[in-house]
């Protein structure tokens, strides 16, 4: 039946996420085909997937010669000419569904990511590996065109359907003149101008060539620079920077500089020197235990996690960050303030007795904390949600004043608590270094578990303690470091630590 070969329709599958407007693109394709005198059939499965789920639209088109063709209503594996993916991972899903074949399929995908819910809810980093998926798509397809079409659409105040349509037009995968694509958009009426601009941007991106398979080297990080400080503070800070060059081996310097900046920004230059003192102590230990051969891993990790530990998130820190000029500039950029628009900012604060006590001199704070009734009274007075306007002078002043408590910070209760925790943590690592160097490095890394505020933070601390509770079982084992790493990773998988419990049980059977 040779007629079959000649009479094959062009088949197109659109994979999108509910709410992205895959239906618009599909309607445009119908209009486009009919405008060019083709017969087109389109089907979709809307249903509940329209609400943020993965959706698929399917079209078949063939030159119309007066008789009705019998067209399929769903894509068949190995039988799809064009796959349009409105998000990168959806191109991967097309491969999973067998819709991408090396002898036939052109894949046009937007490189941007819309994260799935489980990618977002992991307490650690649950984001999927888009690079690996893109590589597979490229391997499996006859031709692959990947660009950030979402960005191009947004830049033109339009939606991704328009930039995808432009990319499709420029790809030449359909035998229709570009002018007819544009007529289709114009016939839609409302928003046509913005759509045409996004269409042109998508087309141009494709005309200039496909994005390289491997991303170019990320552009150099824009290093933070000094934005404030008295002459004396600046001098002291410069001296600390000099210390890094003088005292630390080359491989540590970059991370130590970042750490130094972080703690100095948190408190002051003197605090930065304290950070370097601790780092130097760790380096001595590191050297004595053959760290040079391991790239000073112990010092390297300490440089990172000690900076985070020393720059803990207290009321003063939050107030400080919320009142900085750089913050107002960043927000304006993020929310896209234009022209004469005015912005009001509301913060969502919820102080509890813990925070109040933490901001008191250590002795007084402890004295209060020993009196539960007093704590409850304080809680009653302060523990409530406060929605405050930081663009107003009154509440700005309140936060500004709180931030000003910085100069007393190292005498406050919260600081004492944090210092004690840091001391125990570093001492544990130090004790283990001669016994099991790799395990000591992992102990340092476990500090990653402590983050967040209030309950979240308590949960993090509990996880930290539970992970380290396995140390007695692991100290003597050559693979102890591996196990501790596994425990930490398990702790980052879910909120309540169910995976961690399982991993701890496994460790107990070693």
């Amino acid at each position, binding site marked *: *039946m040779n*007629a*079959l070969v000649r009479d094959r329709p062009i088949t197109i599958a659109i994979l999108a996420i509910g*709410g992205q407007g895959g239906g618009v693109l599909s309607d445009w394709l*119908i209009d486009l085909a*009919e405008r060019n005198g083709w017969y*087109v059939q389109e*089907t979709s*499965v809307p*249903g509940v997937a*329209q*609400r*943020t789920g993965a959706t698929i639209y399917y079209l078949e088109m063939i030159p119309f010669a007066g008789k*009705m*063709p019998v*067209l*399929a*209503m*769903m894509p*068949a594996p190995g039988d799809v000419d064009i796959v349009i993916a409105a998000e990168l*991972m959806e191109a991967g899903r097309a491969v999973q569904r067998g819709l991408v074949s090396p002898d036939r399929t052109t894949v046009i995908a937007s490189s941007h990511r*819309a994260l*799935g*819910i489980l990618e977002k*809810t992991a307490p650690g*980093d649950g*984001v*999927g*590996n888009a690079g*690996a*998926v893109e590589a597979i798509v490229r391997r499996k397809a006859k031709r692959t065109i990947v660009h950030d079409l979402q960005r191009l659409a947004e830049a033109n105040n339009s939606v991704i359907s328009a930039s995808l349509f432009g990319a499709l037009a420029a790809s030449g995968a359909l035998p229709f003149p570009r002018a007819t694509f544009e007529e289709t958009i114009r016939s839609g009426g409302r928003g046509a101008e913005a759509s045409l601009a996004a269409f042109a941007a998508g087309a141009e991106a494709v005309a200039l060539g496909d994005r390289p398979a491997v991303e170019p080297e990320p552009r150099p*990080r824009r290093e*933070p*620079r*000094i934005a*404030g*400080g*008295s002459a004396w*503070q600046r001098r002291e800070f410069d001296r600390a920077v000099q210390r890094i060059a003088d005292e630390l081996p080359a491989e540590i310097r970059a*991370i130590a500089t970042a750490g130094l900046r972080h703690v100095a*920004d948190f408190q002051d230059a003197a605090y930065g020197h304290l950070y370097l003192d601790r780092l130097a102590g760790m380096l001595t230990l590191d050297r004595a235990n053959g760290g040079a051969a391991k790239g000073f891993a112990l010092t390297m990790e300490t440089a*990172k996690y000690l900076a985070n530990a020393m720059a803990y*998130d207290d009321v003063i820190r939050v107030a400080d960050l919320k009142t*900085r*000029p750089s913050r107002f500039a960043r927000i304006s950029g993020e929310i896209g303030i234009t022209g004469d*628009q005015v912005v009001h*900012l*509301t913060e*969502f*604060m*919820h102080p509890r007795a813990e925070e109040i006590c933490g901001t008191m001199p250590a002795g007084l704070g402890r004295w209060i904390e020993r009196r539960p009734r007093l704590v409850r009274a304080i809680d009653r007075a302060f523990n409530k*949600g406060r929605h405050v306007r930081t*663009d*107003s002078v009154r509440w*700005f002043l309140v936060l500004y004043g709180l931030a000003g408590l910085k100069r007393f910070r190292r005498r406050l209760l919260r600081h004492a608590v944090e210092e004690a925790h840091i001391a125990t943590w570093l001492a544990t690592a130090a004790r283990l270094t001669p016994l099991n160097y790799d395990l000591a490095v992992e102990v340092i890394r476990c500090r990653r578990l402590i983050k*967040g*505020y*209030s309950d*979240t933070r308590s949960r993090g601390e509990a996880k930290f303690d539970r992970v380290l509770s396995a140390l007695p079982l692991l100290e003597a084992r050559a693979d102890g470091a591996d196990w501790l790493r596994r425990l930490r990773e398990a702790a*980052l998988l879910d909120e309540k630590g169910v995976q961690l419990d399982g991993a701890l049980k496994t460790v107990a059977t070693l």
Partner: protein
Amino acid sequence: MAERSFAKEVEQLKIGAGQEFRGEGILAVTKALLQCGVGYVAGYQGAPISHLMDVLADAQDIMAELGIHFEASASEATAAATLAASVHYPIRGAVTWKSTVGTNVASDALANLASSGVKGGAVIIVGEDYGEGSSIMQERSHAFAMKSQIWLLDPRPNLESIVKSVEDAFELSEASNTPVMLELRIRACHLHGRFIAKDNKRPPFTVADALEHPQRDTARIVLPPASYAHEHEKIDFRLPAALKFIRERKLNEVFGPADGKVGIILQGGMYNGVIRALGQLGLADIWGNTSLPLYVLNVTYPLVDDEVAAFCRDKDAVLVVEEGQPDYLDQALSKILRNAGLPTRILGKGPFPMAGEYTAKVMLDGIGAFLRREAPALLPDRVRAPNLPAAQPDEDAKILAKEVPFRPAGFCTGCPERPIFAAMKLVQNDVGEHQVASDIGCHLFSILPPFNIGGTTMGYGLGPASNSAFNAKASKRSIAVMGDGGFWHNGLTSGIGNAVFNQHDGVTIVVDNYYSAATGGQDILSSRASNKSRSTRHPIEKAVRGVGVNWVRTIDRTYDVGKMRDTLKEALTTPEKGPKVIVASSECMLNKQRRERPIRQQAVKDGKRVVRPRFGVDEDVCTGDHACIRLSGCPSLSVKKLDDPLRDDPVAAIDNSCVGCGNCGEVADAAILCPSFYRADIISNPSRRDRLLARLRGAVIGWLQRRRAARQLSFAVAG
């Protein structure tokens, strides 16, 4: 108003004979109804026929001109009962709903209707929600047709055949005095295609005529002795009449060569899939030419025995392409052949899987397996013995399985139901897990991540009813969630009334988002919109109190997570006896934005002062724990990696699709999460006062900031 407007599309319903119609399947069905002189139409929305209801609603004026009554029914049972108008009167009526769930609800009325029989053509258009994208239990409408003896049409999925099938359905119904079901699968409902139209017809006898000239015939009432007679009538008269009609009008079609040792018997709806699979096997082309004989059942119940026998005679084997289970056709065909004394083998489930959708791959594999077994000589060499390398374990498949994210359906950006479940999660964190019954509607997404709340769903509006057994002395109370759609569908009586009567202490949360939102935003009794053809604005609280509930709390802003949480806690602990009902009201954000966004954009264009709120996250305050996301799942709240060597985990970030609903801030406050969130109220075209205040504040704040910068060490990335 419905989520999607068909105001433009319905203009096509007016086209006359000879003109070409182009559009969606459901729009074509509407046109077919008008061409058939239908007198009344009713139905209940739900995928895949939601758009049919929307089209009908948007076409009300056109229908009114023709003297056709259209009604958005309170439930499928109401819709089915509406067909009673065709029992005594020569009026054609059509109803529609999602099946099998809608047919379940309707089956009481349907069974009575089928027993009475009809004078005017009565057609039930069922949207068969089966396979990919379906949100319901996987069953077949076929069983309902068989049990009540309602004829079942399953047309080939192209607009011409579907339109013809609507016409056939009315005539078949009238010829056999039996209601007829027309089954459309989800893809057929949303199929874009074309057909040549006919003129619309006014119903020769309208519902108004019936009111003017009432009739009754006791022989048609389901009560002994008539009900006994009905059963005999079905067998002795209606079935033979139907078979005669199907045979004479050739409703079933035969394609392909007259001879051949093997053939395929298929449901009409499977036709395009079968032709494509045969095409892939080199046995058909896309114009429908096939070298294998096909017997297409556009009527899948009843079967015409002699047609079947004629098709199977001289064939060694016949493949039955019948989607879903049980395999009713397979069973019936086997019996027909046995009675006819034919040795032809019937294969259906075997080459095909018993359960699941017949996807393109299943179709190809099934037909391929049948032919390889029964007629390998027909297959081209490449199909019979393909030169494929031995299958290798696919590393890529493993990577994709791991990296391609799971995308369950979820609440939309700014959905007012999100804060309800955030509050429930907080309450359960506080006072422990509770027995929670869910219902049908958008709120059912609570069972998925990130909320993971709710254990069962027993049917539309049956959330509270499904907690009935949990009416016992215990330290905890049961919680049921029900939407406003389900509430009016039947939940008021089956759930609330039942709880009052049985002195149930449990808590029911009625999610009132102003629409039947999950089905596409149709109006219901408690909708706030003024709808020119419907009566709306009937408060749920009033109805709840009306059936005798004393403890009722209405929350008119669900985004107030703290209040939501406290109210739920109160409901779980109050000493008051009897059911506790919380009506949680806020407008469906999808519909609200659709309504308000154009108005806002126009106002900005016109130079009016417009305030648009949106949320943001201070990335240097966020610690990357994502607790906020576990209490939200909002599409606009995501995570991003910072360009900072000291950070391991991505931080929360809100993109520009944020509608400023407030959930993030409220949750951060109520759950005492963190102070990272801020709300930015962006004022376009600020008033002179706005500008002056902003300048003054800017001056004072700027001075304070410069003062601090002169002393304190700080760092910033240069803008």
